[in-house]
């Protein structure tokens, strides 16, 4: 009896695959196989019954609550089945709303169920905002710790230390309350060399301490916290399971180490990691709501919104965050979660702003408020910046991937801690002397200060030199930094490179315009009292171009930049640059840095934007191939428990198709390995009659005569998926790929005239695509 209950429980997962066959008149008039007729006749009454039920709520699956653990869950590093999960949720939903009339408590439960999505994203948004605020404060404090300390109130960073000092003028944020290390160690400021050396040494020392802490904490507590996280989150949202990747340890360690890594002065940002942190929050809060916590497909709705919140707090750009989530990371439901993502992103930005510890009255750390106009002739340097961005993006992706591959395959990969320390030391030693690299986010905030047009003087020349050196240094070190085993974002370094390049071009243009003031091209630009050219705008455009080149983002990037500048008037320059960067970059390589890293790691990610342009058909891709042994199948009513166990021992497939019989290979359904093994083992332990030579029946009706004499039959109809997705062998692969992408399939069965020929899994498709691109198909590692 208990077996039956168990099997019934399991069956309720598959609830929609009802144990009823509904035959139309067609099969009635021409059935040749006996079991066909059998089904056709005995289910006739149930069919009419069904038609009635379908109008109201059905009573079929009441046992959802007491599912045995393990059913409906997935193993680590497996792909989820979207359709199955979504229909599981639908059943759960119907079950709850059916009980609506029962009691007041049930009504509250229904309301809670309906609202839980909104409540969850609200919590996620608030948590993300809070984390971002803490990280902001901590980073700025730790960064300044490299240079000195606010002795009286040690928790202030330099700017806050001098916040309300009534000095009449200062250019550098320094005041008497801020003690630099040289000052603290008693080295007088008069000894220029001595104090410089002390500062230098302390700077490098602190950087090394922060970096060591970061890499050690990551290694000891949460190795998954390293890297950017966006490639993995893209993969997870496309329907892949990585257990622990969004756990609480990852959250804590990533938040702490992000601060440490940024404070160490490494050429990395905290935007990618913030997306990871937001996703961790999403995952953790989703466990508060069973609707989301227990259903991998539904959970991804929350994660999708959380990713939007991550970008939203990173840049203070809620709309940009939503579009980023839409364009880059969301996979299965681009539009369904739009409104909720927006709410989440806005809540996060609002919380971050409400904290507002620094007394800025804008949402963002990068807020730039330009009012100067731009002129049509300036589009030329903007497009030049776009070209630079595109080329740099391609070079960076190539270089970084090559370096990462080298790290993966060579001995370098065995010394991750040493690598981080070396990179930190080199960065700190080279960065300190140059004012444009010594300070985090200097390059962007710097973009806001305006020069008025003046002729070249020594200051400008020196600034140009420093900028050029900073550019080269940044470009080289970023290639080696991205991929070391600390939390590392890519947005800020990319933008910094673009901003430096843009500023250089901007200053060049300014000098050009100033010296040719009377030229008809520049005449309109140089009004009296204005600067001819705004180098800050060039920095902005350059940042947009390089970021576009590296990440291959398009609309979301322009919108983020548009929200940063806060005005529609610069949308044309930004778009011109982003577009040029993308086109130039695409000429080298179509994929962005995240896709390249996904490919490097061999994650099973089927890009939904890439077009499949080949004319192969399903028969070319399906397995078994011609040289391989035949497909592993089960028959519906002739195999014994022993045989099935043998098949399961010998193979490692995740599921088995069930066919009518070995003679007529017509597909009946599909059974998952996991369900099958749980069902058989529990039947063997709980049910005495089931022995090794019991016949397993996947049909609805067990012939009576076999039961007499022989061993008791095992009925497994209820774990059979009666509605596997099938295609014919002539289906073009582009249609198959489209189905996998849009329906979120895990596998599809290939038939010809109703007969089962083979199977195509997601991995097969990825291998096929890799093969068509002349890449190694074995680079696809996971299922």
């Amino acid at each position, binding site marked *: 009896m208990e077996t039956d209950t168990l099997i019934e429980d399991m069956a309720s997962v598959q609830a929609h695959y009802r144990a009823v066959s509904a035959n139309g008149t067609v099969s009635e008039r021409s059935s040749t196989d006996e079991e066909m007729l059998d089904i056709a006749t005995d289910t006739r009454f149930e069919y009419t019954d069904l038609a009635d039920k379908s109008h109201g709520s059905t009573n079929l699956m009441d046992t959802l609550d007491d599912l045995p653990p393990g059913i409906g869950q997935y193993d680590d590093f497996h792909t989820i089945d979207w359709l199955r999960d979504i229909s599981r949720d639908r059943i759960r939903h119907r079950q709850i709303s059916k009980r609506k009339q029962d009691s007041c408590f049930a009504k509250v439960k229904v309301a809670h169920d309906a609202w839980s999505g909104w409540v969850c994203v609200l919590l996620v948004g608030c948590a993300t905002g809070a984390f971002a605020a803490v990280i902001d404060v901590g980073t700025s404090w730790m960064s300044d710790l490299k240079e000195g300390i606010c002795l009286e109130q040690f928790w202030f960073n330099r700017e806050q230390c001098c916040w309300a000092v009534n000095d009449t003028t200062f250019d550098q944020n320094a005041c008497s309350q801020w003690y630099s290390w040289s000052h603290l160690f008693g080295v007088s400021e008069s000894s220029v060399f001595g104090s410089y050396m002390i500062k230098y040494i302390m700077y490098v020392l602190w950087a090394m301490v922060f970096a060591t802490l970061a890499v050690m904490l990551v290694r000891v507590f949460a190795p*998954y916290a390293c890297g950017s996280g966006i490639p993995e989150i893209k993969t997870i949202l496309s329907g892949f399971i990585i257990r622990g990747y969004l756990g609480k340890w990852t959250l804590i360690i990533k938040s702490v180490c992000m601060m440490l890594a940024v404070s160490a002065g490494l050429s990395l940002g905290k935007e990618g990691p913030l997306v990871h942190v937001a996703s961790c929050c999403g995952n953790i809060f989703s466990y508060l709501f069973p609707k989301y916590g227990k259903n991998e497909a539904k959970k991804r709705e929350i994660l999708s919104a959380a990713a939007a919140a991550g970008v939203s707090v990173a840049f203070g750009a809620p709309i940009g965050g939503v579009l980023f989530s839409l364009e880059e990371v969301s996979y299965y439901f681009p539009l369904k979660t739009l409104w909720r993502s927006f709410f989440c992103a806005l809540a996060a930005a609002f919380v971050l702003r409400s904290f507002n510890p620094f007394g800025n009255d804008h949402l963002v750390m990068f807020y730039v408020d330009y009012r100067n106009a731009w002129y049509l002739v300036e589009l030329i340097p903007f497009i030049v910046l776009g070209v630079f961005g595109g080329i740099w993006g391609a070079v960076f992706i190539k270089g970084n991937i090559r370096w990462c591959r080298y790290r993966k395959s060579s001995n370098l990969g065995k010394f991750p801690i040493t690598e981080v320390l070396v990179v930190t030391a080199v960065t700190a030693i080279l960065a300190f002397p140059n004012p444009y690299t010594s300070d985090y986010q200097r390059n962007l905030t710097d973009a806001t200060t305006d020069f008025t047009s003046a002729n070249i003087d020594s200051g400008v020349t020196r600034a140009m030199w420093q900028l050029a050196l900073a550019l080269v240094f940044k470009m080289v070190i970023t290639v080696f930094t991205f991929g070391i085993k600390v939390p590392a974002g890519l947005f800020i370094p990319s933008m910094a490179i673009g901003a430096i390049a843009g500023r250089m071009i901007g200053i060049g243009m300014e000098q050009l315009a100033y010296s040719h003031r009377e030229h008809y091209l520049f005449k309109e630009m140089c009004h009296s009292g204005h600067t001819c050219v705004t180098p800050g705008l060039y920095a902005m455009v350059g940042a947009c171009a390089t970021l576009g080149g590296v990440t291959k983002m398009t609309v979301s990037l322009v919108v983020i930049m548009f929200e940063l500048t806060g005005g529609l008037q610069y949308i044309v320059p930004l778009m011109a640059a982003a577009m040029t960067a993308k086109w130039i970059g695409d000429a080298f390589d179509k994929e962005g840095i995240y896709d390249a890293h996904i490919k490097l790691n061999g994650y099973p990610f089927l890009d939904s934007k890439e077009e499949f342009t080949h004319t192969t058909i399903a028969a070319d891709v399906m397995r078994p191939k011609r040289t391989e042994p035949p497909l592993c199948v089960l028959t519906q009513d002739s195999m014994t428990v022993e045989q099935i166990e043998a098949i399961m021992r010998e193979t490692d497939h995740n599921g088995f198709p069930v066919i009518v019989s070995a003679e007529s290979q017509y597909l009946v359904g599909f059974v998952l390995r996991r369900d099958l093994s749980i069902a058989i083992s529990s039947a063997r332990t709980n049910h005495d009659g089931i022995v090794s030579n019991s016949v397993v029946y996947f049909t609805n009706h067990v012939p009576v005569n076999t039961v007499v004499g022989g061993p008791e039959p095992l009925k497994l109809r209820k774990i059979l998926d009666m509605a596997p997705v099938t295609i014919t062998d002539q289906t073009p692969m582009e249609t198959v790929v489209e189905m996998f992408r849009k329906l979120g399939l895990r596998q599809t069965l290939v038939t010809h005239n109703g007969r089962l020929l083979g199977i195509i899994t997601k991995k097969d498709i990825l291998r096929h695509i890799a093969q068509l691109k002349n890449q190694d198909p074995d680079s696809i590692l996971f299922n």
Partner: protein
Amino acid sequence: QGQYEDVRCKCVCPSVKVHNTTSHKVFLKTFSDPDLCRCSMVVDKAVQETEYNFCNKCECKWNRRNTTTIKVVVILIICVVSLLVLYMLFLLCLDPLMARRPKTYIEQHNEEVNLDTQSIQPGGMLEDTTRPRGAIMMRVKHEVSRVRGEQQKWKGTVQEQRRHIYDRHTMLN
């Protein structure tokens, strides 16, 4: 003194003294009322009279910050980092040693774990264990083995992650 206050009025005025480039002069004052944040109130009369209409070119902004938040956040961060570092040192140095010792140190160890796995446990546990009552001992032992088991499980997970990333290089390259 004023520089640790939560409100300020900041006026940025151009001063033309410096050769050719206009560097900005900044004047600050603490006002709780944003309405009083006007150039004429912030900048000294003497400075105002250096130039005709000096105040017209100034931009004044009233800011409010939250020093308490900063203080709490920074101290929180320091605590978290210190705790993590201590536990890390413990895991790296003491844990291998302890693995070889007999089981007498389990209770003490457990307390350490408790701190970080954040499982809900009554505070006065050490006292409990010293009392020689069988039932409590049993419960404690049970608890201890449970926590121990959880810690082991967590360690196993981390070990697995480490193997993926640092040894086999199959992820997060």
